[in-house]
Every structure is written in C-alpha cells, then in structure tokens.
C-alpha cells in the first residue's frame, strides 16, 4: 500500500539535499486538493542519483514508463539526467532538477522555507515561488490550487 508521508520521511531521514515542491508543498501550506505523488527538486548528478538508488532500493523503484525499467540500473548513463519520474512501493516520486517559472535547485533552495516535519527540518519551496510556478504552468489543476495559494498568501500577510 502506498504511503506518501512515509516516502517523505524516508527522504528526510536520508539527509539528501532536496526541496519539497508541487502539490505536496501546497498541502504543507494549507491547500485542500489531493495529490497522488511527491515532487522534489534536487541536483541530479551521478553521485546524487547513486544516493537515491541506495535510499530507495528497498521500495523497488522503477522508471515510470510503460517498460517500468528498474531504477537500480536505469538510466545507465546518469551524467545528463534532468528529471526522474519514479514509482515506488510507497508511491510515485518525481524528482526535478529545476522548477518551471522559478529556476534551478540553487534558486529554489535559496528562497525555500525550512519547516519541521516528522522530526526533520524540511526545505519547502517558498509560497511565492510555488505561486509563480503554478501561474507559469497554468494547467487546469494548477489554476484550482492557485486560488487557494493566493488566499493563503493573503491570510499570511494580514
């Protein structure tokens, strides 16, 4: 059975540098829409991908393509990887090296907010950056969440 909170705990325990982004970040701020995956932003290098393989090993990660290739051995060449879309036994995990409308990991991390989650410090994309990316993406599901995020920002500024 999938368990996204457990997946997040596994990532937090690993001490891998990442920023929580996407729908799950929105939920941490107070949005009410259900998301079915966890999205994170991190630097994707051969070294960090090896770390990810080790951390996720017991959760049988596969690349989310029809072939469902094992992440343990795919992709073989990790020198040019920009994004990873994985399925694990704990749930789907999307790993992006940059956030559309905001920038690369360093930019996202610089603006990120640090919050305490499950006993760990977790970097979460800033509310302003989350709004920025939702506005840029502008898909129907982004528009729905955008209303809530803007409401939350207004509440926080009062």
């Amino acid at each position, binding site marked *: 059975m999938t368990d996204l909170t457990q997946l997040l705990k596994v990532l937090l325990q690993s001490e891998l540098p990442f920023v929580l982004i996407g729908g799950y970040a929105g939920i941490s701020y*107070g949005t009410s*829409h259900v998301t079915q995956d966890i999205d994170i932003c991190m630097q994707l290098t051969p070294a960090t991908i090896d770390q990810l393989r080790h951390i996720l090993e017991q959760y049988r990660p596969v690349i989310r393509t029809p072939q469902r290739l094992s992440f343990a051995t795919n992709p073989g060449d990790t020198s040019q990887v920009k994004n990873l879309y994985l399925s694990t036994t704990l749930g789907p995990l999307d790993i992006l090296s940059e956030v559309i409308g905001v920038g690369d990991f360093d930019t996202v991390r610089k603006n990120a907010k640090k*919050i305490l989650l499950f006993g760990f410090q977790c970097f979460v994309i800033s509310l302003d950056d989350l709004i920025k990316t939702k506005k840029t993406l502008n898909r129907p599901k982004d528009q729905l969440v955008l209303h809530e995020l803007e409401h939350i920002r207004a509440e926080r500024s009062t």
Partner: protein
Amino acid sequence: MTKSKSTTIRDYDPTLVQDNLKKTPEERLIAHERARVLAEELAKQQWIDLPISST
C-alpha cells in the same frame, strides 16, 4: 443502490483552506494522506474520480 460516478473537480471553497490553516504543516500532510488513501480506495470501487479535497 446503484453505484454512480460523480464529478469531484470542485470550485474553490475558502472554508476548506481556513480549516487547514488551523493545522500545523505536519497535521496537514497527515490529514492529506488519510484523504488520499480514502480517495484511492473509493476510486478503486469507482465511486469517485480523483482528486478530492483533503479536508
């Protein structure tokens, strides 16, 4: 009773957000996980389409 699918993409409801804002970030994620698992179960039974509200 006949099972039927319902539309669950809903309009923005500020009261849901207000309820969420009373919780800590961790509480919000835990509540979301409960809602997500429930939604997953209901979707399997074809009662609803995802996504639904987490509150």
